[in-house]
């Protein structure tokens, strides 16, 4: 662990070294729109940590929202910290420079609260590395008084057991309200003489907060979980016990929710170099593989007027040339046509408008045409599976006819490059389903050829990883060897001019499948792998498979138990005590319907599907325009 230092790192100390590392502006800060706040007078010093490189972290809208919300408070100062690339890590370790906040240049260990955003499981080793480089003991039990409170949120917080021994507090669900409540509890605790344990107990009483150290996990002989229960003697000052089930937080309406209209603009180019407006949160399409479709329910749309205002303000404050209307499925926004017309044709904000995701239909192609304003770049569509049978299983309500129509319409409107997203290894998939992906791509290519365009069809096939809180959470992930075989099968069938085949590294799928549904025991393997040098595991050329295999061996854990085992329907799952609002019963019924190839409608456009969210939280889908049901 880096030696604990309390003083800010001087610019002079850093600048002599930075020429030795790749992309040194990752570590210099100085972004546009950083609020000018004085440390004196602030009660809570907060660092938002993103466990990946700067240019990825700076493109993450959720972090920008939390940064904005926290810095709006005069008593809180929020700084940011990102995972240093391996060259910078070596430099820091060699020179004794600890990991520091980009604005205050204070070592991580000097902050009151460090909050990590856990977007994907393969960043876990980076979280450990950031703590260690920042002079913070890795395990919660070793962090006594004086060390920062380590919190984490994001989608992985809904099934966080593999990283639970390293994180004091998880935040479940929408963070913009609960993060302020955590700051309040922390501030009150800081002004009291209570112990750190007392702080954790107080925090466990905040809705949406999960304190893993307050829960006991019992295991059966076969390694599955027997029970997850709050520990005895977890009484907080108010006398309440840590809840047996922790519900996620939901912001009922986005209309009044805070949004950063003066976003941070990095000086080096981030991966998404454009202004972003969150036009809605949540998706009720009900794709059975999709975790986000469960853990962000219900749909909450912003109004046209608010989006219009936000876009104008964002462009003025940023200087971006493009504004992206982001959400899980932006083409599903209830009045997307009106919104796009308003933003593009009336062009109030003087910038290009883009939609990150399109549906497979001619309506979406029309949108793409309007957005491209003459310039025909590429189109990306996600049929996800090659046959109707498979698409019914995963509840992706797209037919081959839709795809053919969309492609025909796209070619006739000047598009020639079409990218298609698929998954391989879905439950119930056969070789015919895999080969059908190639057939589909070839059919689309032929349509293009018949229409005298020179089509380029890119097929991108990722390995399916069963995720917690989905209808497929009980399913086994196929083995690496089988995934490679199916990838080759598809690759061989996809040869030819105008066809491009891209696929994900099978070992990444393997490791993600282990950690996505892992239990607390996996933390041993995680720490061993980190100590052996695992970093940036989401980067295919960085993931060291043998190192991980050794780590599983040394920790006495069988990776297949986590990745390739079908879970029993009555099994206690490691995230059963964390409540997304969608009932286990609903997910089970979806699993059974998947096996029978029965689809479930979108509750935005049909009757309630009884997933449980609206009933539990007293919420409902909020649409910009009410649709007739």
């Amino acid at each position, binding site marked *: 662990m880096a030696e604990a230092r309390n003083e800010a790192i001087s*610019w002079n100390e850093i*600048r*002599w*070294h*930075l*020429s*030795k590392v790749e992309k*040194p*502006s990752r570590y*210099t800060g*100085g*972004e*546009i729109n950083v609020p000018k706040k004085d440390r004196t007078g602030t009660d809570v010093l907060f660092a938002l940590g993103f466990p990946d490189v700067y240019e990825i972290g700076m493109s993450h809208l959720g972090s920008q929202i939390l940064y904005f919300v926290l810095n709006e408070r005069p008593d809180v100062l929020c700084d940011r910290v990102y995972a240093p690339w391996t060259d910078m890590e070596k430099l820091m370790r060699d020179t004794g420079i600890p990991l520091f906040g980009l604005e205050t240049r204070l070592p991580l260990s000097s902050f009151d609260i460090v909050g990590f955003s856990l977007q994907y499981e393969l960043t876990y080793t980076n979280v450990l590395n950031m703590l260690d480089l920042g002079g913070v003991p890795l395990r919660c039990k070793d962090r006594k008084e004086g060390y920062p409170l380590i919190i984490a949120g994001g989608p992985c917080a809904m099934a966080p057991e593999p990283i639970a021994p390293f994180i004091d507090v998880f935040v479940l669900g929408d963070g913009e309200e609960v993060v302020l409540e955590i700051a309040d509890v922390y501030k009150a605790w800081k002004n009291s003489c209570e112990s750190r344990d007392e702080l954790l107990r107080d925090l466990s009483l905040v809705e949406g907060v999960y304190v893993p150290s307050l829960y006991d996990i019992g295991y059966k002989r076969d390694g599955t979980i027997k029970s997850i229960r709050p520990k005895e003697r977890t009484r907080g000052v108010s006398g309440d016990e840590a809840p047996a089930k922790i519900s996620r937080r939901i912001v009922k309406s986005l209309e009044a929710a805070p949004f950063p209209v003066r976003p941070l*603009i990095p*000086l*080096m*180019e981030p991966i998404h*170099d454009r202004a972003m407006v969150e036009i809605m949160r949540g998706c009720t399409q009900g794709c059975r593989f999709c975790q986000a479709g469960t853990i962000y329910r219900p749909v909450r749309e912003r109004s046209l007027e608010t989006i219009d205002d936000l876009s104008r303000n964002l462009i*003025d*404050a*940023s*200087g*971006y*040339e493009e504004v992206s209307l982001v959400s899980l499925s932006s083409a599903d926004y209830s009045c997307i046509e009106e919104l796009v017309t308003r933003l593009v044709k009336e062009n109030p904000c003087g910038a290009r408008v883009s939609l990150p995701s399109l549906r497979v239909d001619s309506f979406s192609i029309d949108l793409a045409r309007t957005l491209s304003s*003459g*310039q025909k770049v590429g189109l990306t569509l996600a049929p996800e599976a090659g046959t109707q049978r498979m698409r019914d299983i995963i509840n992706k309500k797209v037919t081959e006819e839709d795809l053919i129509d969309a492609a025909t319409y796209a070619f006739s409107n000047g598009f020639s490059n079409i990218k298609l997203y698929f998954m391989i290894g879905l439950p119930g998939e056969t070789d015919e389903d895999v080969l059908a992906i190639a057939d589909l791509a070839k059919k689309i290519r032929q349509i293009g050829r018949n229409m005298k365009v020179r089509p380029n069809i890119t097929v991108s096939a990722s390995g399916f990883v069963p995720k917690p809180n989905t209808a497929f959470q009980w399913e086994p992930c196929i083995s690496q060897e089988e995934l490679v075989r199916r990838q080759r099968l598809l690759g061989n069938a996809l040869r030819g001019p105008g066809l491009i085949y891209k696929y994900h590294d099978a070992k990444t799928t393997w490791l993600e499948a282990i950690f996505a549904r892992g239990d607390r025991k996996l933390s041993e393997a995680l720490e061993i792998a980190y100590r052996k040098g695992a970093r940036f595991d989401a980067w295919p050329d960085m993931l060291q498979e043998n190192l991980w295999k050794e780590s599983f061996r040394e920790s006495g854990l069988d990776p297949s138990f986590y990745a390739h085992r079908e879970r029993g329907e009555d099994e206690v799952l490691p995230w059963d005590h964390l409540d997304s609002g969608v009932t286990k019963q609903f997910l089970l019924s979806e699993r059974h319907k998947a096996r029978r190839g029965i689809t479930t409608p979108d509750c935005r456009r049909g009757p309630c599907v009884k997933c449980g969210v609206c009933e539990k939280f007293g919420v409902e889908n909020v649409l910009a325009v009410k649709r007739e049901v």
Partner: protein
Amino acid sequence: MQELKVRVNYVKGDQVRFLSHLDLTRVMRMALRRANWPVLMTQGFSPKMKVSFYSALPVGTAGYDEYMDVVLNVSDRFLGKASTKSGEGSEVFQFLSLLAHSLSKTLPTGVSIKQVFPVEKDEEPFESRILSSLYHVHMRKVDEICLTTAITEFLKCSSVPYNINRRKSTKTIDLREFISWAQIKPVQNLGPDILCVLMEIKHADGRTARPQWVIDSLSEFGLSADSKEVIVDRVKIRR
């Protein structure tokens, strides 16, 4: 509306020395938009601002005499009889001083505007008029006598071959022909163990050399120094 080409003399300061040239151009373009400069756009599907940058600085090097040209689309009333020869106090200069002010307010810490002035549209390209750059190279933990000797020996040579390693190839240049002169800055108050070398590096046919290459090649003349542990500032561009 008429086109007006203006030259912006700016500073890429210490805090932004690690920005790449490409990132700096992005920062400038975004700042021009935030400052609402009436920049002329190129025609076509993806219109781009008509902005040109000169003599790119490498990552890690600060510049205190940098230039970019911006073509503006301005109302006739600002130009009228005005030309680039109009004196200070003219409407054009007042207009440009307002623009300079608005741009200054939107720039990140470390980037600042020294001057904005009009130039003839058909002026000879700026890049080809650059004769040399004057650099300050700060070094630490280096023996002064050793450094002085190495510089003297370097300058005595009529030719110093230097290999530039690129990703896939190596190119050999005669580094000596780019160096007009180099010397240790005599008066300095830079802190303990820090020395500053001044050097003038020529530009010829769009080519020039980097001060770090000189530091690298001084190893052949008895100096042991890490060219990645120097702080380089370009203080002047000579035309």
